[in-house]
């Protein structure tokens, strides 16, 4: 990694340069909220966005995704959807970049997922620093900082960006399209100050110590029944989560029944039939068992495999849940605080 300084006024140069080779996606306003969407120029960007409704995972594992086309006549696969046009995802916050790293463990690990891989390889990720909202607790997981998984990362120093350059592609972009200069001691000091201020500005310190042990030891605790009582089983938490990757697979036939498509769609372990097997046995038939499984998997199951929890503290689930169930509530409840009404 190396570092450059870019004047804020040069941002349109970077966006225009990107647009020569990539479809540029960035945060834009949608009513009072924000979404990642294709942009035509830097003026459309809202880099002051708090968070987006849906996380960047939509660009790597879309809500509905065709896997292959098939022919009914010979029961064979006709085509696979492995093409992925070049894209630049601009203005991604550290939590969301870290979330992609957690997705990588699953989709690029054992049994590499070719669809995800194609998108990951054809997508440039350009990050930007942020200000924590009250529901942010990325600092609890150490995902407030990001050290890998991006091409460029822009830290706002007021009138200029402190640019972390991690990939060859990122370096070439800067070289070709943007006027930058080497960093000075003053830039580094300003960067440190901004980072310190950021770290001090979280509204609440979430205590995650002993959490893996608690979530295992309190597997039969009454707290899960309380949470199950509240849960609406709507699955919104999974849909907005940048690290939830579960999916269902289904076949769709053409109108004449001659050909069809196999597609995968986002799924949620909160849905009542998620763990059901063919003859009606359901291994997690109650909402309490499903809420428990979701947290158990995220805070312990994934941790046991990859050494990290499957949460980046982005706070989207807190905004999405109509029943006020979120990691901050669950963690406190497990620590003995009960479930606040």
């Amino acid at each position, binding site marked *: 990694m190396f570092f450059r300084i870019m004047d804020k006024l040069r941002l349109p140069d970077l966006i225009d340069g990107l647009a020569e080779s990539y479809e540029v996606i960035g945060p834009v306003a949608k009513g009072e909220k924000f979404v990642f969407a294709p942009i035509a120029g830097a003026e459309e960007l809202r880099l002051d966005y708090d968070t987006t409704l849906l996380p960047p995972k939509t660009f790597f594992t879309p809500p509905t995704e065709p896997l292959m086309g098939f022919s009914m006549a010979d029961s064979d696969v006709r085509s696979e959807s492995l093409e992925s046009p070049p894209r630049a995802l601009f203005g991604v916050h550290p939590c969301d970049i870290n979330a992609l790293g957690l997705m990588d463990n699953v989709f690029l690990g054992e049994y590499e997922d070719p669809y995800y891989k194609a998108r990951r390889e054809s997508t440039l990720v350009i990050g930007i620093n942020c200000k924590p909202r009250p529901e942010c607790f990325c600092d609890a997981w150490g995902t407030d900082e990001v050290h890998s998984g991006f091409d460029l990362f822009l830290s706002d120093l007021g009138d200029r960006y402190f640019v972390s350059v991690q990939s060859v592609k990122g370096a070439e972009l800067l070289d070709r399209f943007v006027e930058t200069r080497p960093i000075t001691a003053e830039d580094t000091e300003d960067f440190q100050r901004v980072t310190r201020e950021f770290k001090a500005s979280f509204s609440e310190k979430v205590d995650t110590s002993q959490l893996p042990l608690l979530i295992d030891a309190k597997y039969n605790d009454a707290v899960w029944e309380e949470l199950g009582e509240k849960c609406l089983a709507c699955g919104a938490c999974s849909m907005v989560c940048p690290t939830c990757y579960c*999916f269902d697979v289904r076949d769709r036939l053409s109108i004449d029944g001659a050909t069809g498509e196999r597609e995968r769609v986002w799924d949620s372990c909160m849905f009542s039939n998620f763990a059901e097997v063919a003859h009606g046995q359901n291994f997690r038939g109650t909402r309490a068992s499903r809420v428990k499984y979701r947290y158990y998997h995220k805070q312990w199951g994934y941790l046991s495999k990859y050494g990290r929890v499957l949460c980046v503290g982005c706070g989207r689930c807190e905004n999405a849940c109509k029943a006020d169930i979120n990691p901050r509530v669950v963690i406190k409840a497990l620590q003995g605080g009960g479930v606040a009404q």
Partner: protein
Amino acid sequence: MSTTTYRDLGANPYRPWPARITSIIDLTEKEKLFELRLIDETVREAFVHDAGQFVEVSVFGVGEAPISISSAPSKQGFIELCVRKAGDVTSALHSKQCGDIVGLRGPFGRGFPFEEMKGHDILLVAGGLGIAPLKSLINHIHDERHDFGRVTILLGARNPGEILFRQQFDMWKHRDDFDLIMTVDTPDASWDGEVGLVTKLFDRIEIDPAATYGAICGPPVMYRYVIDEMRKKNMDADRIYVSFERRMKCGIGKCGHCGVGHQYACIDGPVFNYWEAMNLQGAI
């Protein structure tokens, strides 16, 4: 011997390979035994499985379902699947005829530790459709019988009409290289064998716990009781193997459906030893 494996061939692990149905045998009212041959010769030769592994079977237009392989790893070139008509895909499979083509992915998952089991006595306990994955192990042991000590097989079914592979086991009852006992919950006029749950048969058998590996497969409710019996006979927790049924949409640890405790049944199982399983929250 080729060093290529099926897994090396498939750049896309979601892509099913076409396989022809070469035989269909009606086993009971609900179960049929399918023999499949992968059409591509290279793929067919590279397909090597362990007893206890499963495949994803595609009926295009309907979907995919995970099915345990019943044939022994020692028999190459075809795959035998015992399929109960239970959901959309299995119902569609039941409507297929000999010569029809379906899709096949796999083999997936972790099977029984066959090599580790060698040199030991084996106690196999199956309930109902649980015999499907165990049959692969039984047949594999049969094909390499001299590598094993005493082999005891306990089979349970609801009624005589639901005993799978009845013909084979009826013949085996009289062999001296396998100790086979069958039992049914509800006998009919033709039944002159044991009546009651499979756990009852533990009174009838003698095992040397230090020398024995156990393997269990059946309906979820069965495991706890059978394991209790094995533990009463002083068998070690890590020598008792169980095979779990879970919904597996992808078979490769991505879709999340087969989560059991902190593991995925599709890649960490479906075969677990009891020591692992007893530490899997919500498993048994």
